[in-house]
């Protein structure tokens, strides 16, 4: 069962449709055609030249795989629609059914064939070593890498080569940009990565030198859901046709990626090319040398406004929804813990300890990737709201419990003697007094939730932080855009802090301590 979130209704939808669901029909080619779009998964944070935001116009995704996806979709007679997913989780997201195929520099390897169907290879990349230019001690061969700090991407062939060579492997979850930045500033002594990455991040930096020679070879293939042989065959045929009619070669030439190995793979006798790598030239011109900050503010950042606004809207909506869940659940738990019978108290305590004592990341992963094993496949937004909401409910429950504890037993006695039942006592007497105590920490929690909501980028949502890391990686501008995203966070967080202070003052006006 797949729940498509109309956001405000999403929660209700979850409650209503909770239960074992049927597995999606694996023969999805027909469904895909009926839908009219090929949903392909990739991580824009992975950067150039695969899939990334155009540094000159960040509202557009570009990259040789964007071109590839478009060409594939055209062959299938549909449109291509990119779906954002964290790179090292693309195959899990694929298995969940978040997209039809993963197309993002996925290496052909035996262990992958067990979890997905791999198409034929569409590109062969050499593994290239990059070092600091003029570094006399630079490790210029695999043997010399032993014991040296070397950067690469996790789970890649390059990482395995480095491990075998006995290097001190530093793998980076973030963008490729950081890997080369760290080399330049001396945090590592070399980088081993696929040629496209070396060309786009290493070769354009005058302080770095990409060594001649291949230190390994990696083949990229697209992945479809395990068992979906029909779609795999269709994609294989499409790749064949694109190879024969020269589309693939055209794409690789434009991106400056044509090489002898790929020529052999595609059965093309012309190993060399004299075509101008337009796309690579454009990239180098755009990011090779960063213009000064104020120029960027004037010329570049305005075009990020739309993306950031969308990210901020998602962050805000997600946080508000999750906080609503947390408040409702937190009140129930706090009441259960404060006034419930013993078993309820224990249950409430167990809830608080569990959700407070385990990482949010684990909880989110369980909700999004774990529940499908039980037949419950949640929309990413709903999964994010649930995971954040359940987690923060524990914190809220503790705040409210402290609030309730601040109201003396005498107040409760007074209400009961007047004939108010427990619910009326809480609603009219204890609640309003407890709220004043609970509001300041609850505000802190909301601000914390606002920031923690960035974890949902794990489940394909491009909120504010993910927008930033994508942009920073596409434009190689971490500091300037960091200031921009910080301002965005403050802009959405501060009004709530102010609002909470007003509410606190209003509630506290007559309660003595705050009055004077």
């Amino acid at each position, binding site marked *: 069962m797949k729940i498509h979130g109309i956001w405000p209704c999403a929660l209700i939808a979850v409650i209503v449709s909770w239960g074992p669901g049927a597995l999606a029909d694996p023969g999805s080619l027909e469904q895909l055609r009926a839908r009219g779009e090929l949903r392909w998964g990739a991580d824009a944070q992975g950067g150039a030249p695969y899939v990334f935001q155009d540094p000159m116009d960040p509202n557009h995704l570009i990259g040789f795989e964007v071109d590839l996806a478009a060409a594939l979709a055209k062959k299938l007679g549909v449109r291509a629609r990119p779906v954002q997913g964290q790179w090292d989780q693309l195959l899990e997201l694929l298995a969940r059914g978040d997209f039809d195929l993963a197309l993002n520099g996925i290496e052909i390897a035996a262990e992958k064939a067990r979890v997905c169907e791999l198409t034929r290879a569409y590109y062969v990349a050499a593994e290239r070593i990059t070092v600091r230019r003029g570094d006399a001690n630079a490790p210029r061969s695999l043997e010399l890498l032993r014991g040296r700090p070397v950067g690469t991407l996790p789970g890649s062939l390059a990482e395995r080569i480095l491990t075998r060579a006995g290097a001190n492997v530093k793998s980076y979850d973030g963008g490729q940009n950081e890997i080369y930045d760290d080399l330049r500033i001396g945090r590592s002594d070399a980088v081993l990565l696929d040629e496209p990455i070396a060309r786009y991040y290493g070769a354009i930096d005058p302080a770095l030198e990409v060594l001649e020679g291949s230190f390994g070879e990696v083949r990229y293939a697209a992945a479809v859901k395990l068992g979906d042989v029909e779609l795999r065959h269709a994609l294989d045929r499409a790749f064949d046709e694109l190879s024969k009619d020269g589309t693939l070669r055209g794409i690789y030439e434009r991106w400056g990626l044509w090489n002898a190995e790929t020529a052999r793979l595609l059965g093309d006798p012309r190993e060399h090319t004299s075509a101008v790598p337009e796309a690579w030239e454009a990239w180098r011109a755009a990011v090779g040398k960063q213009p000064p900050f104020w120029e960027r503010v004037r010329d570049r950042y305005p075009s990020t406004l739309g993306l950031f606004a969308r990210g901020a809207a998602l962050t805000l909506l997600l946080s508000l929804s999750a906080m609503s869940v947390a408040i409702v659940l937190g009140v129930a738990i706090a009441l259960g813990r404060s006034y419930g019978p013993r078993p309820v108290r224990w249950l409430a305590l167990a809830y608080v300890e569990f959700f407070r004592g385990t990482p949010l990341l684990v909880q989110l992963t369980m909700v999004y990737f774990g529940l499908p094993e039980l037949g419950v496949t949640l929309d990413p937004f709903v999964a994010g709201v649930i995971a954040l909401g359940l987690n923060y409910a524990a914190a809220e429950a503790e705040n409210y419990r402290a609030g309730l504890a601040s109201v003396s037993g005498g*107040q409760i*006695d*007074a209400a009961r*003697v*007047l*004939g*108010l039942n427990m619910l009326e006592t809480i609603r009219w007497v204890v609640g309003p*007094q407890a709220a004043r105590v609970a509001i300041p920490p609850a505000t802190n929690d909301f601000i914390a939730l606002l920031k923690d909501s960035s974890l949902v980028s794990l489940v394909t949502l491009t909120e504010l932080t993910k927008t930033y890391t994508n942009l920073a990686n596409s434009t190689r501008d971490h500091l300037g855009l960091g200031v921009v995203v910080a301002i965005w966070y403050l802009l959405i967080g501060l009004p709530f802090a102010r609002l909470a202070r007003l509410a606190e003052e209003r509630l506290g006006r007559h309660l003595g301590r705050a009055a004077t």
Partner: protein
Amino acid sequence: MSDGIAIRVVDLEKRFAGARELALDRVSFELGRGKLGAVVGRSGSGKSTLLRCMAGLEDFDRGAIEIDGVRVESGGAASLLGRVGLVFQAFELFPHLTVLENCTLAPRRVRNKPRGEAEAHARELLKLLGLENKVDMHPLRLSGGERQRAAIARALAMEPRVLCYDEPTSALDASLRREVSRTFERVRETAVTQVVVTHDVALARDLADSVFVLDHGRIAESGAPERVFVSPEHAATRALLSENEYESV
């Protein structure tokens, strides 16, 4: 029920969980309608427990409490909630509500009285108690005496047949004693039966129609104040009297 008795407590027994001694040991007394009874005794004598039982906050193990002919037995004390008024030692006014709101909360939420009606009645009571200028104030802005009167008005707003006070003079300056006496006299005008729990002998002597001396959970002696305090028959009464003399020095 038409025998003119407002409160009849019959063989009331109460033991707190884990306690060896009884907190209340076969306590029996009665009080006529509109009268003011004083339960006196040293701290730990069980007078606060008796009060909490009468107000319905605490259940009891044996015996019965009869309010205006309605009999409540062990296990049913909660049915007294809302029927017997209680003015707490620390008043326990609701600090987030105005004086008027304190007085209208229960009539509106429990009795479902319309707001206008509840407010009119509350204003009447507040006027009776000399608080007509304080209706819109919050409790923390009031003086101690005003808070007590507000708490009394709040209790009376539920139109109880019986109004109990827990140590009404202990939270107030000695100089306010006359004000307290005046307040009791005013409440008497509403024909409500009053029970004052106190260790303040002077208060009991000046105001009470009947006095009940509580000692170790038992009624040691009872009678008119002029009899009990002038010629006490029980050692507990004498001890209480000497304690009070010592205090007033």
